[in-house]
């Protein structure tokens, strides 16, 4: 903490504490999703065949596309931090804007993915789903809850990106004060991290 002492006298700001707070929040998020993954593991252990059948109904191509673009968006948000650290405002905005667009595209893909499922009756309480029995109902329940909560995080991420984008444009976030961008980046990487596990467990189930 020795490096914070020098500027407490003029501006009250503690970037390290801000970041620590963000990490603590990330840990609660990891445990939230962790418990959902635990549920998935137990239900899959008890209904292996039903989970495999359920997995076959899920569109791998959309899953791969969303995985690839989400990974790219993680790199672009990291690059926007590099840009701001170097004092390159336009580049930072460009990278952040790219991340924002990708986040929206991810949701559009999700809309089509879910839309097709719902159209065929594969939604909680849907007729096609109920015919497949208890295990598959559990599989799709988890699919909608887990990728739904993940999508909610994407929506919150979009809100954060819009706010941070404006702050950079207004030069409120700049070379020497960018903890908002850094924490938004951390949040976005968390969203990516969760998807890294959701993708093989739902889309690549074997």
């Amino acid at each position, binding site marked *: 903490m020795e490096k*914070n002492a020098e500027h407490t006298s003029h501006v009250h700001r503690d970037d390290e504490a801000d*970041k620590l707070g963000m990490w603590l929040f990330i*840990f609660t998020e990891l445990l939230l999703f*962790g418990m959902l993954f635990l549920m998935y593991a137990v239900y899959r252990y008890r209904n292996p065949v039903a989970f495999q059948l359920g997995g076959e109904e899920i569109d791998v191509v959309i899953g791969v596309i969303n995985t690839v673009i989400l990974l790219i968006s993680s790199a672009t948000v*990291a690059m926007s931090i590099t840009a701001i650290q*170097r004092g390159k405002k336009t580049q930072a905005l460009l990278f952040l804007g790219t991340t924002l667009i990708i986040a929206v595209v991810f949701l559009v893909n999700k809309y089509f993915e879910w839309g097709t499922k719902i159209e065929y009756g594969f939604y909680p309480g849907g007729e096609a789903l109920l015919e497949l029995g208890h295990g598959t109902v559990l599989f799709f329940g988890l699919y909608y809850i887990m990728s739904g909560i993940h999508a909610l995080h994407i929506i919150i991420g979009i809100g954060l990106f819009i706010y941070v984008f404006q702050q950079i444009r207004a030069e409120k976030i700049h070379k020497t004060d960018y903890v908002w961008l850094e924490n938004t980046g951390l949040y976005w990487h968390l969203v990516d991290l969760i998807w*890294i596990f959701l*993708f093989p467990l739902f889309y*690549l189930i074997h």
Partner: protein
Amino acid sequence: MSEEKHHISSYKSHLLVLLALLILTAASVAVTSVEMGAYNTLVAMLLAGAKATLVLLWFMHLRFDNKIYAIFTAFVIVLFLLVLFVTFFDYSYR
């Protein structure tokens, strides 16, 4: 200001990490069609774990930041694995 002390990752390093992540993604898709029984899930989780490690260490900067973040993160992961282990210990011997 204190920021001069911060490690600044280059664009190139971010792109290299991205490339590695995309290669691992391609590998996990490719390996799905190989029949390995129960090991398919294990391999898929190991590949996902490798990807998660890359994201944590480079994108989330754990490699360069104060070590306390990495220690906390490791603690949370171990806690989760312990809960998973205990749960399955329970389910397997009912």
